């Protein structure tokens, strides 16, 4: 017998060493079912874990705290990355002039003057008034966002994104213990709807400055401020912040500015500005013999796209007169209006702050 025949015979002989088990198939079937379910559960768990990790990691990547730097040998602030938790109700404020929206804690005051939006916790003074305070200010400036020294932050330190807007973040601790976090955000948004954007408008910078006068204020309000900064995005019209008429809770002169801002925002947004007006003011705007118009120029029929404050005169008794310029085009002039804010009837209810009356000028004024 040849070697190969011997080999073949050995295999044939030992083929019977194993006997097929008729019960093997049910066992295999059960194992297949078990393995399939385990695989599906593992896949589902992996997907859930991935979603959870993404939900945790993405906000941290999108809006990281500026890495910070210290000038003049001052120590770094002790404030650390805040826990991304909702710290209370927020209100969406629309910076209509600059095409952004920001979510700020309810109770914070929203102010606007000379093109700067300013938000402070209740009870703290504005930056202009001075004293220990904490504020988030937002301003649109011309030029690319990565221009150095744009806001006094001499050492932009960190590239980041805020709701997909490229941004530079930097931090500054002054020798007097003031604390600033500065965000220079690439801002190429235009006000909706159907607003024409010039090429210059596409290449501007939204500068956001978070400022605390003291370390204690920084520590207390920085988490709220960072949430607010994280929320900044182009205004998309889905959060009209001015649908509700003001209540009669305004008690100081700042509430007049706030109401004025809301009124002007609503006019630019073309949403429910009437809700802020007394019957007298509504009649003034409805008079076809003057140049006042709520949402667009009666002369050119172009909608208002922005506004600027010119002056404010406190009249006493909770009243103030604002000189504002309504604009159709940022690069050209606008129409000056004189609007008085104070106690007035709105929809049959007496409120402490409303658009009480309005005067007008049909002369086109210079924009700057």
């Amino acid at each position: 017998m040849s070697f190969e025949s011997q080999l073949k015979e050995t295999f044939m002989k030992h083929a019977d060493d194993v006997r097929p088990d008729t019960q093997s198939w049910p066992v295999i079937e059960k194992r297949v079912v078990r393995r399939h379910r385990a695989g599906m559960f593992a896949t589902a768990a992996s997907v859930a874990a991935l979603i959870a990790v993404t939900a945790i990691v993405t906000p941290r990547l999108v809006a990281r705290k500026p890495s910070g730097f210290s000038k003049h040998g001052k120590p770094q602030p002790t404030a650390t990355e805040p826990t991304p938790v909702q710290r209370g109700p927020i209100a969406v404020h629309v910076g209509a002039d600059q095409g952004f929206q920001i979510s700020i804690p309810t109770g914070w005051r929203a102010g606007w003057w000379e093109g700067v939006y300013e938000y402070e916790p209740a009870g703290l003074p504005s930056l202009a008034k001075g004293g220990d305070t904490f504020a988030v200010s937002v301003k649109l400036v011309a030029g690319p966002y990565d221009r150095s020294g744009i806001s006094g932050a001499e050492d932009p330190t960190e590239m980041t994104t805020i709701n997909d807007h490229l941004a530079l973040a930097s931090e500054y601790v002054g020798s007097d213990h003031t604390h600033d976090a500065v965000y220079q955000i690439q801002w190429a948004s235009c006000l909706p709807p159907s607003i024409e954007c010039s090429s210059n408008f596409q290449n501007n910078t939204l500068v956001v400055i978070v400022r605390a006068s003291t370390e204690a204020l920084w520590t207390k309000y920085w988490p709220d401020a960072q949430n607010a900064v994280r929320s900044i995005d182009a205004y998309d019209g889905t959060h009209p912040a001015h649908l509700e008429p003001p209540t009669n809770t305004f008690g100081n002169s700042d509430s007049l500015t706030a109401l004025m801002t809301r009124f002007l925002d609503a006019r630019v947004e073309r949403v429910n500005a009437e809700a802020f007006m007394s019957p007298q003011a509504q009649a003034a705007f409805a008079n076809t013999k003057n140049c006042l118009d709520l949402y667009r120029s009666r002369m050119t029929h172009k909608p208002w796209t922005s506004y600027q404050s010119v002056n404010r005169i406190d009249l006493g008794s909770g009243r103030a007169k604002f000189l504002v310029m309504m604009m159709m085009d940022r690069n050209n002039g606008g129409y000056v209006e004189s609007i008085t804010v104070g106690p007035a009837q709105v929809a049959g209810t007496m409120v402490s702050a409303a658009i009480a009356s309005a005067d007008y000028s049909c002369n086109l004024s210079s924009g700057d």
Partner: protein
Amino acid sequence: MKMGELVVGGPRLALFQPSKERLDQLGAWFHAEYPSLLRFAYFVSGSSHAAEDLVQDAFVRLYRSSGRVDDASFKAYARKTILNLARSGFLRRTREQRSMMKERDAVSQLADGTARDEMWRAILSLPARQRAVVALRYYEDMKEADIAVVLGISVGSVKKHTDRALEALRARLGEERRS
């Protein structure tokens, strides 16, 4: 589904149920090829219990791959899977789990005289791939080209493994006979 029929979690849990179509196909392959695959696994592993585990494990893996495997490629795919499992850590795990059964195997082999089979002992001493090659060549009468397809290697490699296996067997048998 009839109107008014009560369905409890059926559609949502369907994802966690294996495909009936694929299970049926797997069952058909099992009933047609199980004996020959079991023998092949036995020749490769040298253990009847390990062979049973190898075949079961191969079918579980086949279920996951059955979308890519058809009737024509099933035989080759199953054998390749068995060989790969045998060459991987599968046998180590099986040996650990079934050490007692192995002892029982040895006792039964001694009882029926197979342990005294010189050629069989020599075959079991071969590396798994060489054992697979000679099993396919001399038990299943496959041509070298078919063996190459089953094992996923070149015909030249099949020749090389066959030559080395035969050389090793001759050497082993010569040693045993001398001793």
